[in-house]
């Protein structure tokens, strides 16, 4: 089960700039906090986010611990052709989580 939420319009006109929103459930542990036993809680964050439109990167981001838990990001892209938007999040451990959305361009 995916823990990511993406919001992409289902249809668009060719050349339109569409708004895209993506969010993923992740604690984004900073590594600066102490646990109840006085031991620092190890850092665990998502370091990279990518949005691919039919396999080509249209937007990417590098995250640091100052990003909120469950990182949310809103951006835009140009609707060029009907296809798939793939969202990819990579965390500190190298684990990759993906989500996809289809768009029909007329």
């Amino acid at each position, binding site marked *: 089960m995916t823990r990511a939420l993406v919001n992409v319009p289902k249809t668009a006109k060719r050349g339109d700039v569409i708004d895209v929103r993506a969010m993923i459930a992740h604690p984004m542990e900073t590594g600066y906090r102490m646990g109840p036993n006085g031991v620092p809680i190890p850092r665990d964050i998502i370091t990279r986010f990518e949005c691919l439109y039919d396999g080509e990167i249209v937007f990417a*981001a590098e995250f640091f611990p100052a*990003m909120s838990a469950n990182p949310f990001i809103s951006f835009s892209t140009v609707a060029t052709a009907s296809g798939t938007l793939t969202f990819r999040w990579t965390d500190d451990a190298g684990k990759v989580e993906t989500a996809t959305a289809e768009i029909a361009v007329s």
Partner: protein
Amino acid sequence: MAGDCHGMIDRRELLTAGGASLLVCALPGSALARPSLAEAVAGFTGGAPVQTGRVTLTIPPLVENGNAVGVNLAVESPMTAADHVRRIALFNEKNPQPDIAIFTLGPRTGRARIATRIRLATSQTVVAVAEMSDGSYWSSSASVIVTLAACIEDLS
């Protein structure tokens, strides 16, 4: 006699060694201290001059919870292949680490407008720096008052 002399050298060596180790001890401390906001921005631009303007950074001036502060970023740019925003970086002044996020854009992004949520450890200034395709850098800053801090609070 020779033994005495040897002893002297040993003491001297010890003293210099001691001084060196003190220096070594002092170094990690300065390395641990976070770079300043200006240093972080210079690290992103590679020392290139940063002009004020073209970037709009919108943050509520007073936030109650530093764990999730909504940030809106907009850069004036036609976003064409010839003239677009290449990267936008967000920096803070007083969190344990100056970087917040670096966004990579291109002509296919269509519009240089981003919204996200960040953490702020205390009341401070947040700076957004945009790198254009012509190599120029533009920035905007906003100061925020935070009543509940983020990042460094402990679990209890």
